[in-house]
């Protein structure tokens, strides 16, 4: 099917079981809302245009507790407004999906052109050191489709906000998208408690233990808290107990998504085996990076590339293994340098790390080849 990235995201959300979408118009994300305004009534779901992005994300949190898989979509300035709500989703462990279609920023920047300026915001944008956001970066309409489904699965599995960090190019590009049959999709649904209300507590927290999530109105008399709590769900905590509880609870939020391996935490490599120089990219920048690698190979240069699909939690171990034997790393991203700092943490000290900034458009193959020639020489 020939589809725009934003349309692919909207259709994938519906296939993943999303039945609540709230959003606010913003370029270049608006087509997601427009598509879902039309599609949600057809599938018995809810679409609502809220008064702003704060209302969009918070209504998504309410919808999720009312039992729906829920999503919102925005771009940089709206994503900033959502950070407050993302903190609420983190502490209440509410599954939800947020699509951020990045554009040139800050502020209005340039609304119709791409950038990758929100990588750190996606991880650190909310307050209070909450580290439970999972962030995925699609590089094509096909991946916009696949990663949106993955985002819903991960949100349900880990009871956490999952961010699809797209950009204007991926969002507005039209390409062929293969839509699998619904029976071929692996979908994760909400884990409901198996015990009656009297025996149920959803307040206990340990590192990777993810509690089942009852729905509002199902008799569990939930006390859902944006406040630090004890394991019994009490909020009148003596201050001397706060350090212990805060450490335990914040560690739980961080560890639940980083503990163990999960299939979406992945990196795709291209000609990595024999390369002493590696290009690192994610999202739409990967498209010209791959063509630059092909060109470089034609010229006999031993160059490969690695594309990060999961940005957060950062796939440190996987990337370290990929970059074990290289001398040069070139990080290609549409910003002044965000992922490059994480890459520097991962590689040996002797490795030369170069960053190629560009905003508002993809790096061209020629620009990348020029850069590679300088780096390798």
């Amino acid at each position, binding site marked *: 099917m020939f589809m725009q990235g934003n349309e692919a995201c909207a259709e994938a959300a519906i296939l993943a079981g999303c039945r609540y979408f709230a959003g606010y118009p913003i370029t270049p994300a608006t087509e997601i809302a427009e598509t879902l305004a039309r599609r949600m009534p057809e599938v018995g779901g809810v679409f609502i245009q*809220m008064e702003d992005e*704060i209302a*969009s994300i918070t*209504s998504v949190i309410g919808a999720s507790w*009312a039992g729906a898989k829920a999503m919102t979509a925005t771009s940089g300035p709206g994503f900033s407004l959502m950070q*407050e709500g993302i*903190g609420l989703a983190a502490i209440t462990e509410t599954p939800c999906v947020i699509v951020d279609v990045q554009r040139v920023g800050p502020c209005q920047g340039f609304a119709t052109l791409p950038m990758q300026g929100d990588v750190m915001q996606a991880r650190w944008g909310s307050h209070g050191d909450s580290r439970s956001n999972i962030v995925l970066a699609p590089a094509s309409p096909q991946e916009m489709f696949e990663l949106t489904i993955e985002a819903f699965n991960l949100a349900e599995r880990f009871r956490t906000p999952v961010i699809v960090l797209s950009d204007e190019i991926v969002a507005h590009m039209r390409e062929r998208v293969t839509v699998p049959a619904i029976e071929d999709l692996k979908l994760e649904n909400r884990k409901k408690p198996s015990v009656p209300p009297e025996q149920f507590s959803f307040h206990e927290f340990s590192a990777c233990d993810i509690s089942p999530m009852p729905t*509002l*109105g199902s008799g569990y008399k939930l006390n*859902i808290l944006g406040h630090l709590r004890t394991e019994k769900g009490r909020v009148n905590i003596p201050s001397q107990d706060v350090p212990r509880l805060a450490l335990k609870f914040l560690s739980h939020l961080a560890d639940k998504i980083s503990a163990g391996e999960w299939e979406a935490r992945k990196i795709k490599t291209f000609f990595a085996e024999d390369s002493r120089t590696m290009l690192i990219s994610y999202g739409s920048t990967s498209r010209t990076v791959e063509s630059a690698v092909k060109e470089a190979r034609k010229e006999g240069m031993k160059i490969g590339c690695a594309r990060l699909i999961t940005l957060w939690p950062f796939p440190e171990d996987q990337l370290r293994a990929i970059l074990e034997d290289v001398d040069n790393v070139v990080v290609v991203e549409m910003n002044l340098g965000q992922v490059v700092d994480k890459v520097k943490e991962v590689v040996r000290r002797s490795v030369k790390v170069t960053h190629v900034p560009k905003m508002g458009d993809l790096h061209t193959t020629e620009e990348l080849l020029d850069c590679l020639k300088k780096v390798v020489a």
Partner: protein
Amino acid sequence: MSHPLMKYLREDWMPTVLCPGCGDGTVLQCMLRAVSNKNVDMNQVAIVAGIGCHARLGTGYIAADSMWTLHGRAIPIATGIKLVNPNLQVVVLTGDGDCGSIGLSHFVHAARRNIGLLTICFNNSIYGMTGGQVAPTTPKGTKTKTSPLGNLEYPLDLCSLAETAGASYVARWTTAHPKQLTTSIEKALEKKGFSFIEAVTQCPTYYGRYSLGSTRPSEILRWFQRNSVSVERSRKLGQEELAGKIVIGEFVDVQKLELAEQYRTQSRMKD
């Protein structure tokens, strides 16, 4: 013998953390009386509260599904709940700062949409939880911690805003009018659209001390009684005569199509 309304509360959470003499407990009691009189199934109630004294009281202590959330955002959270499950009785608890300041746009838009939320605003005319700062509802001239020379700004009338924005039911009472307040909550529980009830409540700790020169709840309650004017009588009075008065009563009571219900009807028409 246990209090007849104790069955609606988590007894092991008592006593509450609020100050002695606070009026919020009176509002809570009116809510629970209304729920009891109307035989509301508490398993089908979802309470959403923002941040403030009202929220500290309204979540946790009541044995029902409740969410204690972000400052000002209870209304959009409740909107998401109501749209997904219109059968739930979704109750928003808010305060004058929560609703009239940080959450003002959500409040106006919920009234405009006429979404079926019962919104009860605990108006103590000051920021109590943070220690007595000026609020958008604080009367002109009042000295607070952040208006030490006297408040220069005019107070916001939340009920007239709700009315203008299109709410289905709007009423204001004070904690000196618990029976009327209870009756209004009972009516609002049966309303389909957006209901807004403002409960003017005494804050002896801050507002009483700063504005009225008294920390005695009984004096503040008498002041509420003396200064309250019924909505009917207020229509005959001029601006000057109404200055400093609390207009009480029902401002709006109309039947209008509710959003969640309309959405469902419209969607079905499409299939």
